[in-house]
């Protein structure tokens, strides 16, 4: 039986190499392949007779075209190593402002959460009187809901029942009383797990009927990578940089109309507050997006992991679910929506626990059955992450022993972030050639940078995107690791970088002044 060759697939990314912002494994050397003795042929050719080669591999994996060994992140790791070995550099330390990892940058965890997690891990500590009573009672409640009273038991694949109920209560309260059905809550391994699962569910069809998914440009590259791996069609809609990165319905319409020619658009992904943009959508905008999704029959995916990270005056987080229901039954009974949240961001910053949930609204019953099957295949989300999510949605209340400390820590973290957001915007806007939209929320700044023509040409000569060229130079000269805008997508001919606002304030100030100096130096050198 003849085996058909996989059809070549068009470059789906926005004409640019995507940079994967997660840390690449340092020093991966491709030549080492298992057992001690080398078997690569002398001329470097791939050993013959392999079952799994580039040619026999699932072709959709090949399409995941992001620079996995993120040259910039890998180089940053190398530089760290060199510094630790005593090599002289024009900087004392590498500052990694590339990844949204708050604890890595020194943010402190919430004491109460860690106390409860310790108690759940080692219940003997329930006898230790250095732990407050409210932490102990939370721990007992969580343990009771675990099989065998242990976090080591599998939970149901949709997540621990009582945690899902607590999440539902939280959502209901957050959204001003709009009912939340615990049955619609799925606990996930970080929000990424939920997002990828939903995309798996949505993507189907062949050729012109292949599922298309609308994603913002710029976007968080998990979306483009997942779409590439699933062989879905990526439909880009541009955010409006001039209007503080807001969503523009006419632009959504344009993108959709064009896409209808070559795929079957089924979903619209929105990140609010935005990554990398930091934009917080206003209520009217959310309503407009919902109307658009309703009109065009699109499944709405609302990534809301930064929902507590709102800093700018006049900005407020509005959940898509709340707005949907406040628009009345014409919309709330029909628009299909999945909202995502996580323990990795906000004031918790607990990326390593992989806690998250998604809420599914108006999903067809048969599809829900499929979803249940899909999540069962990965067994269950990590129980410590589920426990942590439970605490996030059910934090200390006024009157409880840990309340004051909890509020103090949460407020300190969020206000520090707000200050740093402001500082970043202000400093960057003093640099000629850098223009930075207000960081209304989330954890990043995505300023536009001007790159002189000479530099653009030199970058081209090296086969690099201009902003990658810029960021690599910045890294080598200052030790500061940022991510070039080409990794997130941007309008042709524009350049950006994304930096986090997470380093401690004093370090952030140094970082910003170094970036300023570098930019001026770089501009002068290439003028």
């Amino acid at each position: 039986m003849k085996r058909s060759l996989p059809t070549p697939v068009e470059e789906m990314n926005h004409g640019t190499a995507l940079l994967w912002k997660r840390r690449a494994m340092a020093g991966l050397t491709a030549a080492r392949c298992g057992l001690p003795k080398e078997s690569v042929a002398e001329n470097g050719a791939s050993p013959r007779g392999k079952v799994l080669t580039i040619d026999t591999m699932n072709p959709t994996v090949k399409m995941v075209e992001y620079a996995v060994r993120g040259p910039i992140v890998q180089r940053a790791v190398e530089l760290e190593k060199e510094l630790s070995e005593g090599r002289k550099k024009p900087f004392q330390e590498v500052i990694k402002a590339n990844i949204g990892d708050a604890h890595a940058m020194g943010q402190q965890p919430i004491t109460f959460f860690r106390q409860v997690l310790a108690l759940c891990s080692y219940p003997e500590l329930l006898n230790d009187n250095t732990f407050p009573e409210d932490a102990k009672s939370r721990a007992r409640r969580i343990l009771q809901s675990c099989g065998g009273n242990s976090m080591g038991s599998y939970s149901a694949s949709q997540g621990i029942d009582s945690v899902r109920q607590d999440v539902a209560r939280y959502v209901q309260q957050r959204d001003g009383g709009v009912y939340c059905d615990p049955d619609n809550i799925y606990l996930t391994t970080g929000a990424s797990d939920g997002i990828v699962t939903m995309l798996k569910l949505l993507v189907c069809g062949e050729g012109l009927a292949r599922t298309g998914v609308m994603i913002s440009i710029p976007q968080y590259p998990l979306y483009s990578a997942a779409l590439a791996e699933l062989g879905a069609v990526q439909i880009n809609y541009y955010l409006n940089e001039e209007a503080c990165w807001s969503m523009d319905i006419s632009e959504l319409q344009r993108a959709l109309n064009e896409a209808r020619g070559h795929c079957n658009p089924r979903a619209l992904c929105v990140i609010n507050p935005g990554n990398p943009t930091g934009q917080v959508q206003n209520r009217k905008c959310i309503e407009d997006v919902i109307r658009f999704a309703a009109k065009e029959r699109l499944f709405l995916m609302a990534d809301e992991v930064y929902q507590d990270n709102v800093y700018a005056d006049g900005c407020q987080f509005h959940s898509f679910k709340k707005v949907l229901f406040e628009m009345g039954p014409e919309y709330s009974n029909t628009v299909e929506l999945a909202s995502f949240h996580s323990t990795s961001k906000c004031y918790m910053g607990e990326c390593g626990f992989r806690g998250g949930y998604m809420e599914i609204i108006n999903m067809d019953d048969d599809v829900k059955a499929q979803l249940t099957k899909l999540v069962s295949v990965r067994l269950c989300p990590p129980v410590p992450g589920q426990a942590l999510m439970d605490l996030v949605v059910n934090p200390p209340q006024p009157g409880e022993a840990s309340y004051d400390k909890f509020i103090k820590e949460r407020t300190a973290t969020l206000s520090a972030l707000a200050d740093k957001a402001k500082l970043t915007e202000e400093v960057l806007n003093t640099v000629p050639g850098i223009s930075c939209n207000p960081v209304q929320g989330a954890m990043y700044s995505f300023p536009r940078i001007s790159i002189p023509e000479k530099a653009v040409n030199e970058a081209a000569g090296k086969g690099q995107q201009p902003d990658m060229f810029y960021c690599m130079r910045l890294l080598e000269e200052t030790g500061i690791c940022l991510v070039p805008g080409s990794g997130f997508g941007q309008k042709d001919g524009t350049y950006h970088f994304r930096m986090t606002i997470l380093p401690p304030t004093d370090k952030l100030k140094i970082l910003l002044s170094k970036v300023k100096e570098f930019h001026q130096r770089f501009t002068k050198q290439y003028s």
Partner: protein
Amino acid sequence: MQEMSAHVRTNQMAALTERAVRIKRMLEQGVKKPYKDVIDVSWGDPHMAGMKPLTFVRQVLAACCYPQLLDGDNLPADVKRRAQKLLRCCDGGSVGSYTNTAGIPAIVESIAQFISQRDGVPADPENIWIHPGSQMALMNILTLLVNSEASPKSGVLMPVPGYNTTALSVKTMGGVVAPYFLDEEHGWALRADELRRALTSARGACWPVALYVINPGNPTGHIQSRKSMEEVIRFVAENKLFLLADEVYQSSVYDANTEFVSYKKVLCELGPPLAHTLELASFHSASKGFLGECGLRGGYVELVNMDPAVMPYVQRLFHLASSPPVAGQIALEVMAKPPQPGDPSYPLYKHETEHIRSTLVDNVKRVLQVFTRLPAVSCQPLLGGGFAFPRLHLTPKAVHKAKEAGMQPDMFYCARLLEDTGVFVRPGCEYGQKEGTYHIRFCIMTPADVMEELLRRLSTFHLQFMKDFS
């Protein structure tokens, strides 16, 4: 018996689970039943069944979550040392940070050393990927192998009876499961002639790309002989298949005359050219064995002899899950590097692991004793693994009654067992079995008293059931 649609079967599987949940709730609410609790042995989950976690693991985990504990006097020195070592490896000194996609390098290194010590062959940390559970790591490797757009579809040879989650994974990614039958009469052995038959048969329906083996077996409890493993290796080499070796039960060996040896070790000892060319992925996890930490989601895959050009794509796939949960990584660290003689925690660790070991060895003895005495049920030797998978010799009357109820006979048996005794086991039809044979699967990783009670209720029920349908 008529072939039942997959849809109906799935519904019945879910129905059995839901019934168990319902009965548990009813008992909690004080509803009177002929039994005081549900004995849930439907999962390979030791903690759910009542086994305790290892103290050292949990102390280290607690100290990593809440480092203030390191200042107190309640934790042994080696716990503190280990927690400090791990916290130093975490960015910002916090287990809340992301880690490298493949796991914290020091932990990956510990795993490499564990593998090297186990096999007497060096393991390269660069070929080891920690992931949230071995099943998810397996899914990533399958994603590389299974081409859902191809015609014919990619096929994976999988054992019958076999763990149904893995088969479901293959199907959800558009692959075909090509079954090979294990030989029940010979202790559920894997026979080379059966592999050949299965492959020939598969070639008509799909393009076979991989062979999946699970050793020690789930649900069978079989441990392969070295000879059998060598046959498998030669078979995959001859037929250009990728070998997927699920070895998560490697610490669970109960028979005194049996030894677990890893596929990697057997491969290595076969020497070149096989040892240098045969592609192998071995999976292990902190979910089974002495740790039993299913909920922490700590697993890993070791890739052997992969084409170097493919490795960047492996990395990309693992990236989509960002980084593995740190709690699971901590469990793997302790699994790979447990307390050693001389360490303050060693005596307790030794005591706990020996207790677990002897409990399970005794459970296996009791299970085999009971099934030897009971009529109409037989059980192959339980060499290792996490389950018993006895065969039910049901009467035609029972089979007929099941058919009338629209159920597979062993599902019918399990539903009645649950209802009448509160014992929750799973039917063999969920794992696959030869036509006309019926089995049940239950977890044997339970405390001794739970096993005793389970066997008591099961025996009573079985005798009554056989009488009712004689």
